[in-house]
């Protein structure tokens, strides 16, 4: 067997030592991991850029539509407000009490021997309408004439569509004064009638609002 002499033993040993340097190996591993991480980051960055491009396109579309949508939303809110306000105003108009028909009914009840001296009426949201009628009646039986007025008024108002009609005397007194009705001297009575009713059952005929002349 031939004898081999290794004259470079020290150099080879040093070289092996250098190759086994943990710092060098570690740095190489770190560089490898770093490269992988960089690639992963690059992939993510690419995806993010694609998303950003998509976002830009959507924002461009949105910027075209947004003014229309904002205007539509504003108009929609305005229209809803108008509809609600109109509904409330319509309700207000429908729930008004119309004095015209009431005064007409009252006029129908007044016979020639009856005189009204005062009519005081109030509309209450909760109690309905309260009217106080004061006047004088002249007849042979003046109290009977006043009672006729009371009954006729009650009948007229009930037929007129008002609800819960109550016509009551608050006062009915004979007067000393004598009146001349149709050439006959007749006695007189003073009366005060309290009229209460609910106007809900009867409605006037509200017209469409007309634009006033300016």
């Amino acid at each position: 067997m031939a004898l081999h002499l290794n004259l470079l033993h020290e150099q080879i040993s040093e070289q092996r030592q250098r190759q086994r340097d943990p710092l060098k190996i570690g740095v190489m591993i770190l560089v490898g991991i770093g490269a992988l991480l960089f690639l992963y980051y690059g992939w993510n960055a690419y995806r993010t850029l694609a998303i950003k491009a998509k976002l830009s396109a959507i924002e461009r579309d949105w910027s075209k539509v947004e003014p229309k949508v904002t205007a539509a939303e504003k108009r929609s809110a305005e229209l809803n407000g108008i509809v609600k306000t109109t509904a409330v105003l319509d309700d207000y108009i429908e729930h008004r009490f119309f004095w015209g028909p009431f005064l007409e009914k009252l006029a129908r009840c007044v016979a020639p021997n009856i005189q009204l001296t005062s009519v005081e009426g109030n509309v209450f949201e909760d109690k309905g309408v309260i009217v106080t009628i004061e006047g004088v009646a002249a007849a042979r039986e003046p109290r009977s004439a006043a009672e006729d007025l009371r009954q006729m008024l009650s009948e007229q108002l009930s037929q007129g569509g008002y609800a819960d009609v109550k016509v009551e005397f608050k006062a009915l007194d004979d007067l000393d004064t004598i009146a001349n009705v149709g050439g006959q001297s007749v006695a007189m009575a003073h009366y005060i009638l309290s009229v209460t009713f609910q106007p809900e059952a009867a409605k006037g005929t509200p017209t469409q609002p007309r634009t006033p002349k300016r």
Partner: protein
Amino acid sequence: MSQVRLSKDQIQKVALTLVGFVILIYVYFSFFLGPLNRSRNAMLATIADKQSKLDSSQENLAKTAKLEQQAKAATGRFAAFKALSPEGAPIAWFPPRMKSFFANQQIDKATARLENSVAFKQPELANWMKYVWLIDIPQADYGRLGKAIAELENLEPLLAITKLSIRFSGEQPEFQQVVLSATTVIPKQ
């Protein structure tokens, strides 16, 4: 099997490498991948939001167009209600209007004065005010007054008479003294 024995110097280098690895991971996730992911997630959320807005925008536009059609009658009525009240303070135009109205009904000397004005509690009428007026008619024939009141109630839909007082006038029995308390609904100026 040969056992690798590390010298003290080598152990230090391995430890240094591990520290370097930890720092690399920390820097990578904290300063690179983390912000990138956050930014991407934020963009995805914005895209979802904008996309839903875009999807609903067509629906909203269609709804508004439909509402515009449906509310045509209401907008017409609303405009008519507003047109009932001229520009300017109501106290400047309402009393002359009442005076001329009753004069046209052949009832002279009618005067109107403002008793009070209040805002409505309903949010729907936030832009409207309630005015209470006292209309004084010193001399009126009952029949003519009744017709005038009926005409007024029909002509002024936003006017409601809440109090009525008709009194016999002693000197001229054919005429009555009348006081009306009327409430009007007028847009805020």
